């Protein structure tokens, strides 16, 4: 497991309106250890030598124009896109997922929930693939429970894109129950290089028993173990 001196380095980006950035930083600190840099959206560059970049949940720019649209064009995102291109793991949760699609790092878009209402509850998911550094610690098809809290979580992509995601085993998580109308029950997707994951459920809210479960902790453990950082 992680510890303060294990050399793991992560960055959590805060946009104006992010509200899960602290939870994300705490989850990474507790499970991966090392150093978590808090980076402001207006910063010109990321710290060197990162093992993980996390885009947290929230309502960046008040969801103006489209959820994640303004944040995806903020100064720091140029560096995030460059780092993703070099293979640095990038995790976007909830609003972070919306930002990643708006930035073009992930296919598709997240539109208004089919039922119109904001959905805030624990949901059942199935693990779609274990072939990624985010999901290697789960079992394929494993049923897990992680909370969602979103208004625009309805995943949309054209049929050709959805077929490609399935053919390339890039659907990281699927909803195991009706949640928001997402195409093919998609709750989380990987990019082609498999180092960028966007997901609507909040793994950082399910990392210790006091929160009701630890199904989210496995995701952070996967990243840590995948990087083979000495404990």
């Amino acid at each position, binding site marked *: 497991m992680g510890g303060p001196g294990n050399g793991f380095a992560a960055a959590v980006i805060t946009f104006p309106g992010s509200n899960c950035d602290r939870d994300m930083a705490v989850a990474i600190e507790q499970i991966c250890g090392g150093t978590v840099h808090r980076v402001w959206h207006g910063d010109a560059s990321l710290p060197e030598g990162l093992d993980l970049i996390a885009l947290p949940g929230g309502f960046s720019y008040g969801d103006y124009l489209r959820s994640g649209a303004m944040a995806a064009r903020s100064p720091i995102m140029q560096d995030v896109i460059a780092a993703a291109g070099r293979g640095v793991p990038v995790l976007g949760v909830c609003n972070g997922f919306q930002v990643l699609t708006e930035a073009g790092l992930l296919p598709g*878009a997240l539109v208004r*929930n089919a039922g119109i209402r904001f959905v805030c509850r624990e949901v059942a998911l199935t693990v779609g693939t274990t072939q990624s550094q985010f999901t290697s610690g789960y079992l394929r098809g494993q049923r897990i429970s992680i909370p969602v809290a979103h208004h625009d979580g309805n995943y949309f992509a054209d049929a050709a894109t959805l077929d490609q995601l399935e053919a390339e085993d890039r659907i990281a998580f699927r909803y195991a129950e009706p949640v928001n109308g997402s195409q093919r029950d998609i709750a989380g997707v990987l990019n082609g290089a498999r180092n960028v994951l966007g997901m609507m459920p909040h793994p950082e809210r399910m990392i210790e028993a006091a929160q009701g479960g630890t199904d989210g902790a496995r995701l952070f453990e996967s990243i840590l173990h995948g990087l083979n950082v000495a404990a």
Partner: protein
Amino acid sequence: MKVRVHVSLKNGVLDPQGRAIHHALEGLGFAGINDVRAGRLIELDVADDTSDEALDDMCRKLLANQVIENYRIEKVAA
């Protein structure tokens, strides 16, 4: 120069907002409504020499998300 950018959801993209408006109109007693789609109108006031290419660029880079939306640029006569 005044420019209006009309942003609308592509066919095939579910529009729960439009559906809610549809139901609300029917609730008010309006009959014969086949469908309702809600979009967005963005009004820009730009320099007169702004090129069509630049306007198109604004739409593609920010104003519309072409995964889910279409856009139409309308120049408004002064």
